[in-house]
């Protein structure tokens, strides 16, 4: 058995000017996860670290840099799953948490539930001391530009076949 980390940065189309940053971002994230494995850390620690790095990288549509909804706001989803226990935790529609993946792990570790959504997820975050941030801090200039461009070009109801 050979320890391994495999990371992806999403299947959506990447503009040519951003491909280099995307590849370097997933490389850094994979290295960070693999360093944890080399130090004897768990696969769960490795995947959460890798995804945390990508959430913090504004070139990816998760965490800071998330695409915007119809109202121009961030709504993020995340999940973790542990193959040893089949334990799982997830959050959906969270708006003001820097790292939804870490909140998803806390749902797995600290509750008997598998998925908390929206305000309930935020209440849980508050109850265990996860800091909330202004939602605007997760919005990048690029994500706002894409939102405005798409809003102008497409009817709001035309949502089929966009990729996350």
């Amino acid at each position, binding site marked *: *058995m*050979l*320890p*391994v*980390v*495999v*990371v*992806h*940065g*999403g*299947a*959506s189309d*990447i503009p040519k000017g951003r*491909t280099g940053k995307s*590849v370097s971002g*997933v490389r850094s*994230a*994979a290295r960070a*996860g*693999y360093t944890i*494995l080399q130090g*004897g850390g*768990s*696969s*769960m620690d*490795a*995947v*959460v670290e*890798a*995804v945390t790095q990508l959430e913090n990288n504004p070139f990816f*549509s*998760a965490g800071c840099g998330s*695409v*915007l*909804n*119809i109202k121009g*706001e961030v*709504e*993020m*989803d*995340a*999940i*973790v*799953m*542990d*193959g040893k226990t089949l334990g799982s935790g*997830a*959050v*959906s529609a969270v708006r003001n948490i820097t790292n939804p993946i870490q909140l*998803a*792990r806390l749902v797995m570790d600290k509750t008997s539930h*598998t*998925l908390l*959504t929206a305000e309930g997820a935020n209440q849980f975050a508050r109850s265990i001391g996860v800091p909330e941030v202004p939602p605007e801090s997760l919005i990048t200039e690029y994500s706002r530009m*894409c*939102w405005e461009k798409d809003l102008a070009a497409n009817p709001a109801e035309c*949502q089929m*076949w966009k*990729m*996350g």
Partner: protein
Amino acid sequence: TVGAVAVDNEGNVACATSTGGVLNKMEGRVGDTPCIGCGGYADNQVGAVSATGHGEANMRVTLARLVLFHMEQGQSVEAASDLSLAYMKSRVGGLGGVVTVDPQGQWAARFSSLQMPWVAAQKDALHYGLYTGE
């Protein structure tokens, strides 16, 4: 969407997936990512998957669990990933990608979309790609 799968020194597998969703989505829309078996699944007896792509299509075929189903039937990580993505494309017209591992450390990064940045770190080496075939 971003995601990762891993196998540690003890042979335990795990997955993690996170997303901002799709551009201009309706308020309250929840896609595949936080749904078990869609945006990710992990089971030490089979492997782990993190998925990305057309969220609603992914959910209709429970993509991550479908990959592991094919592995349970004896397919390799690569074949199971390809079969599942092909099924999603043919049945519901959706495109996407997955990163997959089995408990022995075999891995795959496969996608039916035009591109998906991916990296695998194993044996102190990095393997990476962006377009099909890389």
